């Protein structure tokens, strides 16, 4: 059909273009809605963040961080999936003992799920235990001095990751517990370990045995024997469930060391009760 020259008078000038007009109107309404809803949205977001139901946006630091945070926000619910991928990649690198790569992939995992403190514990564990153990026996580093230095470097890295994470999760005790274990087992610093275990007490995720660990580490700390004895004896007297082999062993050792009068000493353990040292597992299933 051709354009008609004798068009109705109503179409003098331009014909109606309702789509363009209506689209503009819709945009205007959307904008007006946006202006109104802000009064509801902003306090709602603030209250959700206050109730720990929304991740707060990290403080402004650099332009890079803005880009990074935007990516995180856009990824939204995809983050758990991507975090699993990153973590599996880290595990893959762990199998070939590529510790720098393990560190990198854990960094990505933590970036994707900064709210999951367990990733921080895992990273610290890899550094302080696995990487350290690798350098202890590695044939790739022939020098014993170099191996010892690497072992200390990776142990310190593990502690540094935990130190960075602990202020971010002030109510979680697991991070402090992990740090205390590294101090105890790898740094052989029972005094620091005891204090760190003590800091963990009463926090979320900390089980009853940590209370005993404070005493066990105090018992190993030079100059803290009396404090350790008082602490462990209190636990012993408190409940029969605490009459565990390690606790009895430590109390008896301290009784001898501090020359506690015989009448005040605790009874000897039953002959069939093993007097083992603390062997509480870290619950890691390799």
């Amino acid at each position: 059909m051709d354009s008609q020259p004798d068009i109705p008078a109503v179409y003098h000038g331009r014909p109606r273009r309702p789509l363009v007009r209506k689209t503009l109107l819709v945009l205007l309404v959307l904008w007006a809605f946006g202006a109104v809803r802000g009064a509801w949205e902003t306090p709602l977001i603030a209250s959700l963040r206050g109730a720990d139901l929304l991740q707060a946006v990290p403080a402004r630091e650099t332009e890079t961080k803005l880009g990074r945070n935007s990516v995180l926000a856009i990824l939204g619910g995809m983050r758990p999936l991507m975090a699993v991928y990153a973590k599996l990649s880290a595990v893959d690198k762990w199998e070939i003992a590529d510790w720098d790569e393990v560190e990198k992939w854990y960094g990505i995992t933590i970036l994707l799920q900064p709210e999951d403190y367990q990733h921080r514990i895992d990273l610290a564990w890899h550094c302080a235990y696995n990487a350290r153990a690798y350098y202890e026996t590695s044939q790739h580093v022939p020098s014993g001095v170099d191996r010892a230095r690497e072992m200390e470097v990776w142990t310190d890295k593990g502690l540094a990751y935990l130190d960075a994470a602990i202020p971010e999760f002030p109510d979680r005790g697991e991070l402090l517990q992990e740090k205390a274990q590294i101090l105890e087992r790898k740094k052989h610093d029972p005094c620091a370990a005891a204090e760190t275990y003590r800091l963990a007490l009463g926090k979320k995720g900390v089980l009853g045995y940590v209370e005993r660990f404070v005493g066990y580490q105090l018992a190993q700390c030079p100059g803290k024997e009396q404090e350790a004895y008082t602490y462990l004896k209190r636990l012993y007297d408190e409940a029969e469930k605490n009459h565990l082999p390690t606790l009895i062993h430590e109390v008896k050792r301290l009784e001898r060391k501090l020359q506690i009068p015989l009448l005040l000493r605790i009874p000897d353990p039953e002959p069939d009760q093993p007097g083992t040292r603390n062997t509480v597992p870290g619950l890691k299933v390799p």
Partner: protein
Amino acid sequence: MSGSSSTPPSSPPAIEARELTKVFPLQWSKGYMVAVDKVSFTVNAGEVYGLIGPNGSGKSTTMKLVLGLMAPSLGTTKVFGLSTSDVRARSEIGFLPENPYFYKHLTGAETLRFYGKLCGLRGRSLQERIGELLELVDLEHARDRRLAGYSKGMLQRIGLAQALVQRPRLVVLDEPTAGVDPIGSREIRDLILRLKQEGISVFLCSHLLEQVQEVCDRVGIIFQGKLRREGPLDELTAIENQTEILLQEASPALISKIQALIQAEGADLLSLGRPRTTLERLFLDEVERGLADARSAGVHSAEPSPPPRP
């Protein structure tokens, strides 16, 4: 039941279009196109009206304006006195689009149930209506077959059935026999005639003139958006200054006498010969004869349809 007897005389027209105009603005320019230009026509209740015209003449746009799928730029359309923008008017309309594609995953019965429910039908009355319609369009054997396995003719017939589901008083058909074989085409034509007998108004858009001629009471010829001719079919097709005489068993002598008389009176003999049937009629007669032979030989004839899709 005839159309005239079933419709009360006071009934408003099935369709009343006045000065119907549709202008489309052209994309990316300030131009426009007048698709329908001041078209006025009336379809009386119980009448079969054919709107004919070549492709792109404005038939489909007119039909969409009647259905309320488009709003006119100027003018009005009413269906049984109700504006087509009124949802109630659509209770009175059944529509079969050209080459209809319904939800292929539904069976014939489910399709009718879907459209019936949209029209407010429920329960037993809907079930009964589905049965009636499947019988009407001769698809009872395919009621539980998915439409993906229907032939074009079957789709057209189920389309007609859905158009009729709420017992509309007006049926709008857009090229109802497009792409349908002659047998299917004849069946649809018979259905239209049956609707007419039941007093249902039919508004038919087609470019198949022979088909329109067979079923329509009145026709309108649309071209370049304008309604060029409109009126009762007999009046439009009659040639005022010609007369046709059809004889049977006439001897050559009688024909010679008639020819001489014509010459003597000064009239012109334009043609003389044996009347011809149409090709469609010839084809259908042969098919019918073949079917009759097969029946007499005890061979069952099945509905021609493509194999169902995997």
